[in-house]
Each structure stands twice: as structure tokens, then as C-alpha cells.
């Protein structure tokens, strides 16, 4: 209807933008006064959901009639200036009285306090073979002028000196002055400059290293990440085998007949722990998982063989995740071995524990191999532009259960598969895509 009006017979002129201007009602549906019809139509002909601003709610203009404000173009001076220059600016004058006080920005004119030395002090403490007095004076002048902004100072310095050299000279002069002027050495020994003097060589090296890191190419970054991940893996596997070794030490793995006198356990030293007098204290169920578990079991004096085995198994697999433990159990079953021995004699328990550890080693090696193959195939794929997904998936399936009972001599068919994959040697290209590379090792780790 409005469009018709506009196009056909424009009765009214274009509505003014001011909301307060009352307009003759055209549309009987218009609700509140003071809102023009077009504006109202914007909301779809209905009242807006937000409460509209009531005029009476707005603040009245402050000081509407009390004071007389004028603006004047006046001159001013600033205490920050040393030359009495008079500049002009607009000033808000209230009732004919201009404001007083310093230029409001003068307080921001801060500067650094630079120690200055007398010639005598220079002769006594500050002589340096690399610096003339003239140069040192120049340095200090520049420092004062430029507020210790050494980069600017280095630029302005008459003879070419590096930033580090300038800093070194400045700080060593300051340090010497501090020490010389202090009433006693102990007073000033807390001063940071005295405690840690500026080390020019170190600073040069640090800045060089920083710029090297910042300017590393993507490829170098990737290589570093790979090396670190590899190092971490090696460390972890070393820790795993080390803790497994520690855990087995107190249990004597030999047969029933002989028992070696030097049962190890240096890491635990149960002999110092246990004294005949202290037969109290130890709780009936020791549930710690560290290598000292056997010691706490020994404190009990009497325990079941299976209890020991459980603690040992827990200790040996303490570094492994839950999934790995489940895989170990599955592997034991596939091999036809009871997950918990049916006849847990000393020999059987020892063998069982050894078997578990070997399976853990096996699983670790499999994981390593998977990683290696994944990397190699990713590198290969970036050069041949093929999707690596399918071969990897099938490989993983048969690696998970290497001892599935119905497989024909577990070595045979899988070895053939693996050889087939290894036909193309892994060529390492200079710039493979970085995200998959760095993500993969992390993903495998997270899965455990």
C-alpha cells in the first residue's frame, strides 16, 4: 500500500528522519505516537520487541543553562619544552575564565637517569683498552639523549660499534661506578647489575640463536620435530625396559632347587627396609605399583604366589596403556597360554612374567615398524601422489593379532605381504606436506 503511494501519487513528501516529528496518521494500525509510519513498517507493522527509548529516560543535557562555555584559540607553554616556544590551541573557557595549569601532556615526558662520572672517577675505575674516554663520553651523551634506546644509539654512534658492544661498555661502566661509589661492597651486592653483569658474548650468541630459530624454514622445523619425537620414543622404550628390569629383580627367576645368594634389588634394598622387630605396620593389601612392591610384600612375610605375580605383572605393564595390556592378554590367549596360570608355581610364574615382557617388547617393535612404514609410505606417496590409506589399514589388521591360531604358520603369508610393500624404497623428498607428518606420531601415541 505504501509502495503504491510512492510510485503512484506521492501525497506526502519524503518523511523526515526525525522520530519526534509527529506525522498525520495514514495507517490506522500505527500504534504509538511519535514514530513515523515508514519506520514503524520496518518492524513488520508490530511493536518492536525491545523497549524503545523513552525520551523522558534520557539524560537531560547537563549544564544546559548554568554556565557559559566558550571555546577560544589561546597560546600555551609546556614544561616539557626547554625553549619557551609558544604554541596555540583551542581551549574550553568557562564563564570567561581560561583554565590554569601545565600543559596536560607534559607529565608524560619521562627520561632515564643516567649516571655521569667525573674525570677522576674515569681515571680511577673506568679505563678500558677497547674504549677511549672520548668514545665513552659520546656514548653516555647519546644514552641520555635517547633514553637508552641502544638501537638508535648504535645508529648515531660516530664510530661503528655493535649494539652489544655499546651495551657492554655502558653496563660495565655503570657497574664499576656503582661498586666504586657504594659505601661498602655489601650494600650494593643486591643490585641486579652487580649480581649479574652483562655478558656480551652470551648476548650475541643468544640473539644469533633466536634469529636462527625464527628464520627456520618449514622443512627444518619438520625435521626437528621428527628427531625430537624419535628421541622421545627411544627414551620411553628405554624407561619401559628399565622399569621392567627393576621390577623383576627381587623375584628370583631360577628354579626350585637353587637360590642365588646375591638376590639383587639394589633399587629397592629390602634388607635395609626389613628388620625383625618391625613386623607391624604393613597393611594386608599392598596396592602400590612401583618396583618396590615386592619389598612391601616381603614385609607381609606371608603371601600367595599369585598375589606376587599380579603385582609383578602390574609393575611390568605400568608404562603401557590399557589397550596395550588388553592386547598382551589377547596375544597370550592366541598362543594357548592361560592369562592367569593354572599352576602358579615359582617357575611357572617366572616364565609367565618373562613371556609377558617379551610380548610387550613385541608389541613395541610392531608399533615402531608401523610408524616407520607409515612414514616411508607417506614420503613415497607425496612423490607418487597416491592415497596411502588402504595398504596401511590392511597391514595394521594383521599386525594386531600375529598369533591368530588359524593362520598358517604365522610367518608365511604375512611376510609375503610385507615384502611386496617394500619394493619401492622410501625416498625422502625435500618438502612433503608437513601436517600429516607431524600429526601421525602424535596420533599413535594418543591411541595408547
Amino acid at each position, binding site marked *: 500500500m505504501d509502495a503504491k503511494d510512492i510510485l503512484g501519487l506521492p501525497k506526502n513528501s519524503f518523511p523526515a528522519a526525525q522520530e519526534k516529528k509527529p506525522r498525520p496518521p495514514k495507517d490506522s494500525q500505527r500504534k504509538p505516537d511519535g514514530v513515523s509510519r515508514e519506520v514503524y513498517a520496518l518492524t513488520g507493522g508490530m511493536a518492536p520487541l525491545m523497549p524503545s527509548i523513552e525520551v523522558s529516560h534520557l539524560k537531560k543535557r547537563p549544564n544546559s543553562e548554568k554556565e557559559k562555555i566558550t571555546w577560544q584559540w589561546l597560546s600555551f607553554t609546556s614544561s616539557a619544552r626547554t625553549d619557551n616556544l609558544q604554541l596555540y590551541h583551542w581551549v574550553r573557557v568557562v564563564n570567561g575564565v581560561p583554565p590554569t595549569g601545565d600543559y596536560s601532556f607534559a607529565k608524560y615526558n619521562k627520561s632515564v637517569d643516567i649516571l655521569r662520572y667525573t674525570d677522576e672517577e674515569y681515571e680511577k675505575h673506568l679505563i678500558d683498552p677497547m674504549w677511549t674516554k672520548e668514545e665513552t663520553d659520546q656514548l653516555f651523551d647519546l644514552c641520555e639523549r635517547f633514553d637508552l634506546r641502544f638501537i638508535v644509539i648504535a645508529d648515531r654512534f660516530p664510530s661503528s660499534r655493535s649494539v652489544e658492544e655499546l651495551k657492554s661498555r655502558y653496563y660495565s661502566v655503570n657497574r664499576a661506578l656503582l661498586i666504586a661509589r657504594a659505601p661498602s661492597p655489601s650494600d650494593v651486592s643486591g643490585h641486579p647489575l652487580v649480581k649479574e653483569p652483562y655478558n656480551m658474548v652470551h648476548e650475541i650468541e643468544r640473539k644469533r640463536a633466536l634469529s636462527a630459530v625464527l628464520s627456520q624454514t618449514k622443512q627444518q622445523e619438520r625435521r626437528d620435530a621428527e628427531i625430537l619425537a624419535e628421541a622421545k620414543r627411544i627414551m620411553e622404550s628405554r624407561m619401559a625396559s628399565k622399569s621392567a628390569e627393576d621390577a623383576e629383580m627381587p623375584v628370583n627367576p631360577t628354579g626350585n632347587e637353587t637360590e642365588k645368594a646375591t638376590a639383587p634389588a639394589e633399587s629397592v634394598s629390602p634388607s635395609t627396609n626389613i628388620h625383625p622387630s618391625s613386623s607391624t605396620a604393613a597393611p594386608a593389601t599392598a596396592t602400590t605399583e612401583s618396583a618396590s612392591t615386592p619389598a612391601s610384600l616381603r614385609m607381609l612375610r*606371608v603371601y600367595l604366589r599369585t598375589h606376587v605375580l599380579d603385582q609383578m605383572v602390574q609393575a611390568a605393564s605400568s608404562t603401557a596403556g590399557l589397550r596395550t595390556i588388553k592386547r598382551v592378554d589377547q596375544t597370550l590367549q592366541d598362543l594357548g*597360554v592361560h592369562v592367569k596360570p593354572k599352576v602358579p608355581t615359582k617357575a611357572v610364574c617366572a616364565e609367565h612374567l618373562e613371556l609377558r615382557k617379551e610380548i610387550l617388547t613385541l608389541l613395541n617393535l610392531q608399533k615402531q615398524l608401523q610408524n616407520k612404514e607409515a612414514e616411508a609410505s607417506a614420503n613415497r606417496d607425496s612423490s607418487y601422489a597416491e592415497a596411502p590409506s588402504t595398504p596401511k589399514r590392511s597391514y595394521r589388521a594383521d599386525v594386531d593379532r600375529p*598369533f591368530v591360531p588359524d593362520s598358517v604358520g604365522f610367518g608365511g603369508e604375512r611376510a609375503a605381504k610385507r615384502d611386496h610393500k617394500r619394493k619401492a624404497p622410501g625416498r625422502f623428498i625435500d618438502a612433503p606436506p608437513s601436517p600429516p607428518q607431524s600429526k601421525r606420531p602424535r596420533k599413535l601415541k594418543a591411541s595408547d
Partner: protein
Amino acid sequence: MTRRLKDVEIGFPIVYGAISFWLGKKASEYNSHKWTVYVRSATNEDLSVIVKSAVFQLHPSFNNPTRVVESAPFELSESGWGEFEIAITLFFHSDVCDKQLNLYHQLKLYPEDDNGPQSTKRPVVVETYDEIVLSEPTEAFFLRVQNHPAAIVPRLPAGLNLSPPGPVEHVNEKKRGDTKDHPLSPWFMNFSEADELLKLAAARQQVQAHIAKLRRQLSMIDGLPQQSKASSGQ
């Protein structure tokens, strides 16, 4: 004589469990089976050499659910209809250990396959093998048991001088504590470690072969000479 022998442990292989018979015609709703729960030496020797008493904690629905047995054979016979967990606590002689040992056994009355009819002649037998290990025994105790058939006693490390053995202890001969001719002995299971050891040895061989293979593969990919990891057991 109260000196403790360091790094020495004495093992007592035991078997614990229960045998339950269906009562057949005499079975009623609340008394369908008779069963015996026990702890015996794995070689059916007399366990009272170390065990002073055994306490069997039954389901609270039994009268006096805490049953104490103070002499070998350490067993308890009852009748009932329900399957529940029995807690067995072993108390040892004072020269053995002042701590008790807890065992748990789930009583099973009904056979696995409930297709066939139950027979009063064939019981349901559930036994568990384990070994009681006494570590750092006193010298006196060691001497007492070193020749006992129920015990697995190690050869002492060289240089360990024990006081000369006293006269052989006369075992309580009033009542036989061993279970060699126990009425339930025909149902006792045999536990042979040889079988398990064989299986374990075979499994270990397989795993070791696999490990060697993987190591070869890894070193081929790396192009490095084969490294021998210092992992345990190898």
C-alpha cells in the same frame, strides 16, 4: 634362633576349593546339594605344619556362618541350595607368621552344562592351585620344616650357617592331617606344572622368533646395523 634368613623363601603349594554333590532323591527345595569346602596341601600332605586354624566365612543365611576349624584337614561340610563366595582365612602358628592369609572361593553347585540330568555320583569340583610363600623365615622355623614334605625348601645360600638341627619334631599323630586317603581324594584335581611350563616355553619361543624377525625388518628400513636391545629375558 629367631634370626631371620634374608633372601630366603619357603613355599607351600596348596589347593583350595569345593566339591559338591547333588542330593538326588533326598534333595529338597532348601537342601539340594551337599558340599565340602577345604584347603589342602597340593601334594596332600599335612598342612598343620604351618596352619594353626582355618576360618570359613559362609553366607549369612547359614547358622553360625563363621566356622572355625582348628586341626587338619581344614575343611567344612555343609548342605544347601545356593552358590556364594566363601572367604577362607588361614591363621598360622606363632613361629610362622603373625599375619593371616585370605582366600576366596566361589561355591559352585551346578555343572556347566545343564543339559543332562544331574547325577548324585558325579560331583561338581572347583579347585584353585596356589602357593603360600613365607619370606625371610626365622632360623627356627626353617629348621622345623626343612624336611617336611609339604614344603618347598630352597637350598640355602653358601655360607649360611645354621645351628645344628634339633630332634625331629613329632607330628601330632592322634589324627591324620594329611589328605592322601581322604574320602574325596578321588575327585581331587591334578596340577602339573610341567604342562604349563611346556606351553609357556613354546609360546616364548614363538614370540622371540617374531621379535627377531621384526628387528630385522626395522633395521632394514633404517639402514642401520642391527642393534641388540638390552631387554630382559633375552
